[in-house]
């Protein structure tokens, strides 16, 4: 029982981790916490749904289409909204991205209505029995896919020149500029990547959950995962995501269902109380 719950938790956690990694990457590269990240995810997943179910295109076309859409969406958002707000106060970024979230939700409502849709499973098949536990192939598929995606991101950031350039930019913008790195191009790229990560998360999450315009609320879970792991640290974000996934899958067995929604926040509060910088966070020394 507990074992299959943990596997389910890992599956959900994979999605959280993808969302959290995307958020952290955007914060590190452009200093903007994207409150519309979940809605990027939602609307890209709807695009995938339309291509797959309504236009009856093949699987991979639908996925590639949705990813391309997400990348463009990210770049447009960066160019039109984020670039101008990046240098301003933090409240501007929060409200700007929050506004984007509501715009995307509104558009999705007009195009796809408020209904709930069933997204087809990518990994059909019978439940796998391991001991007394039964595990859905969907869960295993999600976990493996997430690991592959995160590994690819890791390799991109560490082995390619552009990826290393992106990391360099996050560490010191002035120095990166002095290396001849074109900052605006890299910003664009990181938001495209952010969009793609969001789209992946949505496509993996949708079959387990129903597809609806309200899906964007996952932004907050993702942010909490990122903070728990230590904001600004990608590995921390992954750990935070999985931790949150497992705990919110296992704990409800022991507490009243009405309180389930509180779990991420209680965890967040605990972490902020004990170690405000998160599990892997470093202490910041402010220069005077």
């Amino acid at each position: 029982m507990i074992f299959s719950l943990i596997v389910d938790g890992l599956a959900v956690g994979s999605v959280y981790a993808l969302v959290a990694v995307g958020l952290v990457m955007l914060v590190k590269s452009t200093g903007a916490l994207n409150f519309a990240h979940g809605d990027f995810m939602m609307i890209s997943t709807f695009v995938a749904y339309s291509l797959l179910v309504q236009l009856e295109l093949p699987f991979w076309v639908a996925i590639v289409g949705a990813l391309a859409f997400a990348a463009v969406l990210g770049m447009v958002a960066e160019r039109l909204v984020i670039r101008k707000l990046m240098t301003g106060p933090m409240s501007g970024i929060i409200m700007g991205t929050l506004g984007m979230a509501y715009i995307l939700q509104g558009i999705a409502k007009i195009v796809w209505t408020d209904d709930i849709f069933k997204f087809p499973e990518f990994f059909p098949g019978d439940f796998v029995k391991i001991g007394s536990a039964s595990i859905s192939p969907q869960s295993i598929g999600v976990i493996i896919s997430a690991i592959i995606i995160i590994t690819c991101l890791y390799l991109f950031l560490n082995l390619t020149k552009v990826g290393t350039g992106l990391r360099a930019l996050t560490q010191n913008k002035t120095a990166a500029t002095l290396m001849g790195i074109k900052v605006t191009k890299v910003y664009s790229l990181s938001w495209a990547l952010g969009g793609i990560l969001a789209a992946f998360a949505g496509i993996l999450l949708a079959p387990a959950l129903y597809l609806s315009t309200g899906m964007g609320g996952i932004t907050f879970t993702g942010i909490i995962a990122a903070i728990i792991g230590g904001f600004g640290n990608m590995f921390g974000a992954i750990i935070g995501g999985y931790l949150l996934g497992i705990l919110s899958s296992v704990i409800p067995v022991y507490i009243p269902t009405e309180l389930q929604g509180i779990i991420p926040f209680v965890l967040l509060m605990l972490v902020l109380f004990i170690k405000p910088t998160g599990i892997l966070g470093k202490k910041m020394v402010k220069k005077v």
Partner: protein
Amino acid sequence: MINKTKNRFLKYLPIIVIAVYFAGPIFIGEYLTYLITLMAIMAIVTQGLNVMIGYAGQFSFGQPGFMAFGAYIGAIVVSRMPWIPFPLTILIVALASALLGFIIGFPCLRLSGFYLAMATFGFSSAIFELINYLGPLTGGNEGMYAPAAAIGKWKLTSTDDVYYIAAITVVLVMIGVKHISKTRTGRAWNAIRDDEIAASSMGINLQREKLKVFAFGAVLAGVSGLFYSYLIRYIESSYFSAMGLSFFLIMVVGGTGRVFGPIYGSIFIIMLPQVFGGKFNQHMNLVYGIILVLFVLLAPNGFYGIWDKIRNKSSVNMNLRDKLFSWIKRERVK
């Protein structure tokens, strides 16, 4: 000269607004009275947010939670003890909200930026979860009936009654904030917003001032929540949680950090759906989202900022006109 009159007009504009407020219900129908009361309530709660973000630089997602807290505390207390006169209820709600503000503010002291935003969001969500969980007390998801404001046997049941309570309060709040902004505490809050390092080396206790601003924001939200419960008489937690966006919108549209910004902002936000009517409501969030993004990008200082720009431009034109005018005058003299 003309500029001066304009300044004077601006100065008295709030007072004119207030005067119209008081004469209001005599001339307008009940629905409009209801709307204006709603504006006052929204202006009060947003003023709390405005003080926190615009004055003290402490971001908060907590306003809806505090507002719900105030509404529920008031409803629970009065439904158990109906004999309590409503001024006392207001006081109880204000004190309870201040206390909650302190309690929530305390763990947030070490946080800033996005951490603070998320922590306040977490607390706000926790309040909603608790309201739903404490069914026997709050009615859970079903919501609960909020008793009318009353003193002795005199019950204030009509919208007009709530209108006056809210109108008086909003005026007091605006005056109070105006006063604070020009004195010791307001300066300390501004200092914290602009530069915490310099503020602390000027002897400002960062923690104490942050707690103060948290509590102040909580009191305004809690009290406005109570008024809201008087107005609609039946409260559900989802009413409050759905309002979060409106507060940001009101603040930004009016002008962040401007004392009377929340008033102009709430007039705009409440009247917008009235002007456009039925179909608009379906896509309200979309329109609000667009307005929010447009304002943040193009007019980050809201109506106040736009007004300043227009005024500056017109003063340039004025100079031109003055020149023309003086030339004509000279002609006449000849």
